[in-house]
């Protein structure tokens, strides 16, 4: 019993650790790819590991208040918790009925922690940045909620693990509900704060916004947080629309299935990330109210169309996965 529990705990720790490592690697790859787009050589792909190491080794000579000290930990812990709810390559750490809805709330925790710390620093740039970040969250959640609704209606479940199973047995979300997938990808760009939606951290406007007062160890922790959230957000898309990368059923193939699924999942999140990075490289950024208008217009319309499609397919055409 205890051994099982320990193995379980070890696996969870391993998966979370790997997620953060993959996130840092992805950040490095993004820098390299962006550099190639910009006619440059770019840093080595492991650059971000060095950066995090350096930041964590730096001395800290800032002192604001305990909320400020606490915020990076809060953000990092929040993102790890959210990651634990997401199946990575079909491996479920925490799960339960209705965790799709729960996840939405958990995903807000790190952002809130981040906002709390930035607000505690009392820097006006950070304040503006936090305001923008919350506004942006409000914008992309509208289409995203509609997409989730479409999925829940079509697959008739609010549990992520059931969703994965049904996607494996029936069809992946991107095949069944392509319109919703498009809307979700648009929302994902804002969720990851890539251009044209990197409004909260715009360096030319508000000197990197909420990050403005964070330095040294704080920034190192926040970098780990953003590495985790890259994996979190890409995995969310992969889990919802690409079957979580599950190609082999673990019930039949056992450990091999986990390894293969993990690799497939890795390839999928890499593709989703690369799409975001390439869009990021060739777009300027919106103003916040333009982003808001954009999200409540096009992605919302697309998401509603996707919802109608899901409704027609499941209710009138009787397609039941």
């Amino acid at each position, binding site marked *: 019993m205890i051994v099982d529990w320990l193995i379980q705990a070890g696996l969870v720790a391993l998966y979370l650790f790997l997620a953060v490592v993959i996130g840092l690697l992805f950040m490095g790859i993004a820098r390299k790819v962006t550099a190639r787009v910009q006619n440059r050589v770019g840093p080595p792909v492991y650059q971000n590991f060095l950066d995090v190491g350096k930041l964590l080794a730096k001395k800290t000579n800032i002192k604001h208040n305990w909320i400020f000290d606490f915020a990076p930990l809060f953000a990092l812990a929040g993102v790890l918790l959210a990651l634990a709810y997401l199946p990575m390559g079909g491996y479920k750490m925490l799960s339960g009925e209705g965790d799709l809805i729960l996840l939405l709330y958990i995903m807000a925790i790190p952002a809130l922690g981040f906002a709390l710390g930035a607000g505690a620093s009392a820097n006006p740039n950070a304040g*503006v940045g936090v305001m923008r970040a919350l506004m942006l969250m409000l914008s992309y959640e509208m289409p995203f909620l509609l997409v989730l609704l479409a999925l829940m209606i079509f697959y008739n479940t609010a549990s992520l693990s059931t969703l994965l199973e049904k996607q494996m047995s029936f069809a992946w979300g991107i095949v069944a509900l392509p319109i919703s997938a498009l809307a979700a990808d648009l929302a994902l760009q804002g969720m990851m704060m890539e251009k044209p939606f990197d409004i909260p951290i715009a360096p030319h406007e508000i000197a990197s916004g909420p990050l403005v007062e964070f330095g040294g160890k704080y920034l190192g922790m926040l970098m780990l947080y953003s590495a985790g959230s890259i994996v979190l957000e890409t995995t969310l898309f992969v889990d919802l629309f690409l079957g979580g990368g599950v190609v082999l059923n673990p019930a039949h193939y056992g450990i091999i299935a986990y390894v293969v699924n993990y690799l497939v999942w890795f390839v999928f999140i890499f593709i989703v990330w690369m799409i975001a990075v390439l869009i990021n490289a060739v777009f300027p950024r919106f103003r916040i109210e333009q982003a808001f208008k954009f999200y409540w217009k096009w992605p919302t319309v697309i998401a509603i169309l996707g919802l109608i499609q899901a409704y027609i397919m499941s209710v009138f055409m009787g397609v039941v996965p």
Partner: protein
Amino acid sequence: MKEFELFVGPQHPGITGNFMYHLWVDGDTIVKAEAHPGYLHRGFEKLMERRTWQMNVALIPRICVPEPDVNEAVYAMGVESLMDWDIPERAKYIRTIVLEMARISSHLLTIGGYAGAIGLYTVGQWTVGDRDYLLDLFEQLTGARVYHIFIFPGGVRWDLPDGFLRKLEKVLNYLEGRLEFYDKLLFANEVFFRRAPDVGVVPKDKAIEWGVTGPNLRACGYDYDVRKVDPYAAYPDLDFEIPHYPKFGDFDVLGHGCDCYSRMIVRRLEIEQSIKILRQVIKKIPEGPHTLKLPNPLAWKVPAGYAYARVESSKGEYGYFVVSDGGKMPYRVHVRGPSYTHGINVTETIAKGLNIADFSQTIFSLDVCAPDIER
């Protein structure tokens, strides 16, 4: 809601150089802006009074760092006016080459900086990388990348090196090809269309009165250009157009002029015109001496009097008011930089009511060059 204060600069990515704006912000809207120059003040006008007429040639390029050559040209023209010198034709053409190359390189830098201000770093990387080809040409011509000290009262320092014009032609062809890439990425970008038009508007009827010059004035719909209005160097012999709102050729006319969009499109079109000018110069450049026979440099005395010379820099009208009392050193030189009005008065006025997200792109599109404000 209570107002808060925001400091843009001197340490801030959204500022062109070492300069500061103090903003009072209500929500997202700027209610008051105040410019604080002086971080780059070196006392040029004082230092020039302590140096001989010739020594100053080495000092003045440092007044405007992104485009130093206009300083040399305008100073040389001021001294020539007082000395009553007619410079040789070939020198005029060589000056034109230098000035137009400087204009292209400065515009490339501005376009890159502007693209960075709205978040498109790729264009900045490309333009600044391509600008280096021009700097290489400058290096071949003058021996330096940034401060060339090449245009001299009486002509230019030396003649064109062998093969320079051929190389220039090559670089021009390359740049012309690259312009398409900038067009695709920035000037045809949907987000740019949404962000730039009708932002940072200088009222058209006030523009001249406020002292707006150069591309910023042309973006308001006037076709005034010192190269046409008060021609100098070889410009009277050359055929070129003055791009201005709303004559944007292949580009869409969005907004109502005088805004960030028009200013950037005007700059983009001016690069094309500069390439055209340089091609004509390559064909037309006459043979002959590159400089007058200069008097003994130790005993240069400039007759007493006042003179004003102006050229069109990439930022606007650049002028020197030169006063001599007949001595070996200038009695007084007053530099009229275009950014002096753009950076302080115009920005302070048009910033009111601007969104803070648009402040940076406004000052980048006005092409405020901090060192020529405070000198």
